[in-house]
């Protein structure tokens, strides 16, 4: 039997990227490059820079985050994102769903036959 743990791990990440990005931005508004650096300590989330910008672009168009250009970095403008009220409501709903999912999954994993 072929066991591909990477494939299974990628399944675990389904939908996690959006939740992770919204949660990080909810804590602290950040630019894309800053977000990439902030997720570096969490390699298991699997959030890479290449796919981050299309996701940020979509979330902004959906009104879940708002981007604003700033030139705080000397010589280089950056677009900083923050979570909108709609995004905060969406994040709360996602967190709740995730909590219930984790509760049930933990109960199954810890259940004794």
């Amino acid at each position, binding site marked *: 039997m072929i066991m591909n743990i990477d494939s299974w791990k990628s399944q675990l990440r389904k939908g996690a990227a*959006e939740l992770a990005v919204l949660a990080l931005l909810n804590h602290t508004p950040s630019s894309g490059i800053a977000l990439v650096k902030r997720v570096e300590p969490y390699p298991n989330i699997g959030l890479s820079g290449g796919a981050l910008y299309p996701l940020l672009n979509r979330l902004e168009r959906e009104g879940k985050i708002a981007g604003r250009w700033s030139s705080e970095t000397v010589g280089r403008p950056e677009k900083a994102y923050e979570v909108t009220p709609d995004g905060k409501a969406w994040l709360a709903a996602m967190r709740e769903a995730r909590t219930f999912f984790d509760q049930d999954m933990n109960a199954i994993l810890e259940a004794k036959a």
Partner: protein
Amino acid sequence: MSTDPRIDKFCDALEQNLTRLGVEQPGDIVSEIRSHLLSAADSGALEAALDEMGSAGDYARQFRDELRIEDAYIRSGPKHTVATLILLSAHRLGAAIGLFFTGILYLTAVSVLVTIGFEIFNPSSTGLFTDDSGVFFLGTIASDTSAYTEHLGGFYIPVAAAMAMGFYLAGGAIARLALRLMRKKSNRQV
């Protein structure tokens, strides 16, 4: 600040591809990507950053597909889902497969609806039949109706209408399933 020519080359190609694909505000996206690549270059990680993005054409498609799949999934109507599958089928196998099965189901629904029209004007040769060997046949027979046994009779029209509706709904469900799978795949790519 780095002025690596690869950054200009990638950003120029990205802007051209985003414009070609009809993505809104390509300049804003390119400015952000340029800023990202310049920061990566400053920290000596430009090669890795460019590798993560792939070719400018593929990366531009990620922006377009991310929006298009999500938009079609949220709106959910057959017009949006089928239009999205048609546009994505050129470079996404999932979209092509979804479009194929959706197309078959929609065409079957239309075909069944056409038989309802024939049933109205020519009821004796249209319906659900079985031949001598017991094989079912749905539609219109040209001649010699005595070789077939007709079923349903006057109930053919409501049954055929229900079947057409069933095929139509199944086609829509397949289209949404294809979009859902592509949506999950987009998330996995992150």
